[in-house]
Every structure is written in structure tokens, then in C-alpha cells.
């Protein structure tokens, strides 16, 4: 196998044995990018020179006796809504077309300290608003399994890069499913940690009470490795939680005997593809055969997740995106006669239609006369959704559902129907509202496109999620398949 096809832990083993170098790995990844990127379009920026320079530095240090940690020498892609010092960071929006951050996001700093090689910044839905990466103001990323289909969104570039062998692992961000849904569409592992587990400092905000950074990887072991590297309290993020970080690799145990697993019936009904349902039920049966106790459970408030989310997330976004006004950074409209017009013109020129739509929705929901009916009401429904999960976790260790109602859809199929696009996040959204962790892993294929199994746990139960996901993975072969490009 080529170096670009291997997982991070496999690459690490070769580095430790001295059978390869960081430079060789990086060159393999860059060559792969050279070969497939014009078809996949995963990246906004590829850092060719910086990556090679860093790789050579790492090799020098290792030769001088430096320790080879789990991320040392591993090429990693970064979603373009995470600040990288000195490297263009656009959120795939025209309004940040020239923004070069003067600082690194905390999680970027962490992986750099761990010796990872930042290979480039990945394409996304503009400001993380979307479920297909079609809302990027720059380019359309293609799903490596079928180039006429979407990679999912909003972390579509990162998921596609990992699936195409253009990065060993990647950062994504997840506000309503934006790591997990592209993971399921691209046949990779994607995890949204518990809210507050990972620092949001340097993540360009969409919805501050929902956003989380997380890993996109080729297998569950790599996911645990990356989670170890990025978790922890950060003084610079007042919403990050001051709790110790366990060694998530210790959770990688092939054993689910006695674990109580609940299939959420409300997410297995109407609107879910028959092939997706079947694959999820097969996965549940597999876990049952391996010793888990599997039952059905209903969380009736979950069906209100999507409307609740589209009030709360858009309201928070309307506030977070006020800062893009052309004053301090980013695009500024030319020839505005006065400041007010500069604001109107800059934002008109700089934002794409979906971003404008959501700013409008959010502003409306917060405006005088509508605040109680929409925003306050949605916050109360959020409490009920959280309570539904709390009740379920009193009985079950983890909950299951499909990650997405379907496999990857064709490019262009949903762009003219925003509501249909929003509904594709029906299973992932409630997780963000409740702040709990969830992981998506591949559990089958339909029409040669991957199907994602969505596993949810209560707050700070990432170890249980990893254990269930790892057990399933060790007893199946889906994760060994690679997209043919």
C-alpha cells in the first residue's frame, strides 16, 4: 500500500521502526493531491512548501533523538474556518477572501506542538452553513466515491480529503452535523465531542452554543488519537470545560458485552431511505450478536429538532456575523459614500445567498415582537430535547440512528430547496442542541455510496462511543475500503 492510503497509527508504526520519514509521507500525500485534487476540489489552500519544510524539521529533530509522538510527522488538513497564523482563512466566503489570521486556533497550536504537518485548508459551506459544501463561494468539492455526488457539509472538504488520501486526518467543525454527515457521505469516521470538550478559540463562530471542533479520520483508532491531541480546557475559551482528559486510546476495546444500546425509532421512520434503515438495523444486530443488549426507544421531542435549530442557530449566527462589516478585515466595498452604505454594500457583496438567508431568519427571530414566539420558545424546546436524551441515557449506554436519511445526493439536487437541505440533518441536529457527543462510522454501502451509523452518548461519554465504534469496526470490513480515484 502507498503511504497516502495508510492510517495515522500505521504511519506512526513505520516512523518508529525507521521504515519511513515525515518527508516521505508528506511527499506521498502531496503527490496524491497532485493526482486527484483537480477532480475532488477538497482544498482552498495547499501549503506545499511549508508542509515539506516542517516535515524536514521533524525528521531532523527525530534524528537528533526527539520522541515520535502519535501525531509526529502526520499530514493533517484543517477546515478553512479555523484560524491559522499567516495562512489565508476564508470560511469559503468572499467576505474573508483576503483574511490572514495573526494567530492560530488553540487546537491548531496543539497539533502543531504535537508535530503534525499542516497540509492545507479545506473547502466548506460558507461560514459552515450547509449540508453539501455546495454553498462554498469558491468551488464545489466532489465526493471521492462518486464525483457527481456531494461530499456532505459543511466539512465536506475535510471529509473528502481524508477519503481521497489527500490527508491522513482532518479537522472539521460541527454545529448541526457538519462533521458527522460528511463523514457518513464520504465513508470516514467523524466525531463531534461533548460541547466544551475541545476549545473553540480560533474557530470562526457560526452558532456559539452549538459549534464544536472534531476529528475526521480513516478509522476509530485515529479518531481517538486526534481526540487525545485536541481535548482539554483552554483559558482563552470560556465555554471550554475544565475536566481532565482521559487517554481515549484506552477506550479502544473490542467488547460490548452487557452494554445497553437503544435504537431511536423516531429517526428510523418516514423519510429515511430503506437501504439506510437496513444497514443500521444490521449494525445493531451485529452489536447484539457481539453481546450488547439492543432495544428500541422513542425520543418524541427529537422531531422538533430541525425547526428549533433553525431558529436558535440562525439567531446566534445573525449576531456572530455582525462583525463582517468591512471595517477591520476582509472585504470592504469600494466607493461607499458613507459608513452605513459601506456596511450594506460590503455585506451584500461579501455574503452568499444561504448566509444571507440565515442572517435574515435569525434577525427576524430575535426582533421585537417575535423574540418570545420564536427564540424563547425554541430555547424551551431545546430543554425538552435535552431532557429526552437524559431520560434515555438513564436506561441506555449509547443510542443509535442513521447519521443521514440518505447516502450522498447528486450535486445540485437540493440547492433550490433550502428546507429539503435542512431536513437532511434531522438525526444529527438534536445532538448539538443537547451538547452531547456523537460519532459516525461506516456501516454499509448503497449504490456504491457509504452509509453512516450514528452513535450518541451522554455528555463526556466519548470513551463509551469509541468502545462501541471500535468493537463494530474490528468485527466488520467497511473501514478498509477506499474510494477508487
Amino acid at each position, binding site marked *: 500500500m502507498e503511504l497516502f492510503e495508510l492510517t495515522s497509527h500505521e504511519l506512526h508504526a513505520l516512523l518508529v521502526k525507521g521504515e519511513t520519514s515525515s518527508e516521505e509521507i508528506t511527499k506521498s500525500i502531496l503527490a496524491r493531491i497532485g493526482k486527484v485534487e483537480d477532480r475532488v476540489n477538497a482544498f482552498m489552500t495547499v501549503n506545499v512548501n511549508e508542509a515539506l519544510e516542517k516535515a524536514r524539521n521533524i525528521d531532523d529533530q527525530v534524528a537528533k533523538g526527539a520522541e515520535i509522538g502519535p501525531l509526529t510527522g502526520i499530514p493533517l488538513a484543517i477546515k478553512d474556518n479555523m484560524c491559522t497564523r499567516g495562512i489565508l482563512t476564508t470560511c469559503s466566503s468572499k467576505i474573508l477572501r483576503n483574511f490572514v489570521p495573526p494567530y492560530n486556533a488553540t487546537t491548531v497550536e496543539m497539533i502543531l506542538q504535537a508535530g503534525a504537518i499542516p497540509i492545507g485548508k479545506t473547502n466548506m459551506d460558507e461560514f459552515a452553513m450547509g449540508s453539501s459544501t455546495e454553498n462554498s463561494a469558491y468551488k464545489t468539492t466532489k465526493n471521492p466515491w462518486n464525483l457527481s455526488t456531494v461530499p456532505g457539509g459543511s466539512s465536506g472538504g475535510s471529509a473528502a480529503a481524508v477519503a481521497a488520501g489527500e490527508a491522513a486526518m482532518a479537522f472539521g467543525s460541527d454545529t448541526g452535523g457538519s462533521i458527522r454527515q460528511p463523514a457518513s457521505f464520504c465513508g470516514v469516521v467523524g466525531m463531534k465531542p461533548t460541547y466544551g470538550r475541545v476549545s473553540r478559540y480560533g474557530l470562526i463562530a457560526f452558532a456559539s452554543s452549538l459549534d464544536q471542533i472534531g476529528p475526521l479520520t480513516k478509522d476509530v483508532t485515529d479518531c481517538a488519537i486526534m481526540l487525545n491531541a485536541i481535548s482539554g480546557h483552554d483559558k482563552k475559551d470560556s*465555554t471550554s470545560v475544565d475536566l481532565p482528559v482521559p487517554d481515549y486510546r484506552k477506550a479502544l476495546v473490542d467488547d460490548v458485552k452487557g452494554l445497553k444500546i437503544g435504537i431511536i425509532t423516531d429517526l428510523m421512520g418516514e423519510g429515511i431511505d430503506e437501504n439506510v434503515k437496513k444497514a443500521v438495523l444490521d449494525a445493531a444486530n451485529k452489536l447484539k450478536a457481539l453481546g450488547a443488549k439492543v432495544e428500541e426507544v422513542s425520543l418524541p421531542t427529537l422531531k422538533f429538532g430541525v425547526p428549533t435549530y433553525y431558529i436558535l442557530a440562525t439567531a446566534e449566527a445573525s449576531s456572530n456575523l455582525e462583525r463582517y462589516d468591512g471595517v477591520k478585515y476582509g472585504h470592504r466595498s469600494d466607493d461607499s459614500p458613507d459608513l452605513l452604505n459601506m456596511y450594506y454594500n460590503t455585506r451584500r457583496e461579501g455574503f452568499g445567498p444561504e448566509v444571507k438567508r440565515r442572517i435574515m431568519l435569525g*434577525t427576524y427571530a430575535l426582533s421585537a415582537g417575535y423574540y418570545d414566539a420564536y427564540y424563547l420558545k425554541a430555547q424551551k424546546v431545546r430543554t425538552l430535547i435535552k431532557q429526552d436524551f437524559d431520560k434515555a441515557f438513564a436506561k441506555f449506554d449509547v443510542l443509535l440512528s442513521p447519521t443521514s436519511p440518505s447516502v450522498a445526493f447528486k450535486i445540485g439536487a437540493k440547492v433550490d430547496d433550502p428546507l429539503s437541505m435542512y431536513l437532511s440533518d434531522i438525526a444529527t441536529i438534536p445532538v448539538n442542541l443537547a451538547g452531547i457527543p456523537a460519532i459516525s462510522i461506516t456501516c454499509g454501502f448503497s449504490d456504491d455510496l457509504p452509509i453512516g451509523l450514528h452513535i450518541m452518548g451522554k455528555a463526556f461519554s466519548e470513551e463509551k462511543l469509541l468502545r462501541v465504534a471500535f468493537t463494530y469496526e474490528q468485527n466488520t470490513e467497511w473501514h478498509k475500503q477506499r474510494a477508487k480515484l
Partner: protein
Amino acid sequence: MAVTKKEVEHVAKLARLGLTENEKDIFTKQLSAILEYAEEIKKIDTGKVEPTSHAIPMKNVFREDITVPCPDIKDILANAPDERDDMFSVPRIMEQ
């Protein structure tokens, strides 16, 4: 619930978004459809329920009130569309 074009114009003004006439028409339709769907949540009884603004229980995260180093002004101004005398320069503010 139908959103009127006037409401769309009002909201666009609040959000400092310059919309074209075409965009106003499209948004009036789309926002109406989305908000009608969002009205679903009105069906739920939330009588005694407390609102959740923050999923993980946390309150009042403070730090010590001591001065810490700030980023360099040069770095901060590096992305400025226009700057003068260590300040961001903008078009004149006119009376509305």
C-alpha cells in the same frame, strides 16, 4: 406565517444587508416557507419549561483582573482595508 416584503426590508435593514429587489422577492417566499415550518414548535407545550441557552451547565467564567500582553498593533492592522495613525479608517459617518 407569511412574511411580508416590508418585513423583509425591515429585517434587512436591521441586519445591515443590502438586498436587490430580486433577493427581496425570493427571500420573502423562502423565509415564509421556512418560518411556517418553524411554527411546528408552537405545537409543543412548554408551559413550565426553563429555556436552555447553554447545553453544559456553566456560569460566570472569570479571570483575574490583571493586564496581560496584547497582540501587536502591526498584526492587527495588517488585514485592515484602510488604516491611518494606528486606527482603522472608514468612510465618513453621515447623518441619516
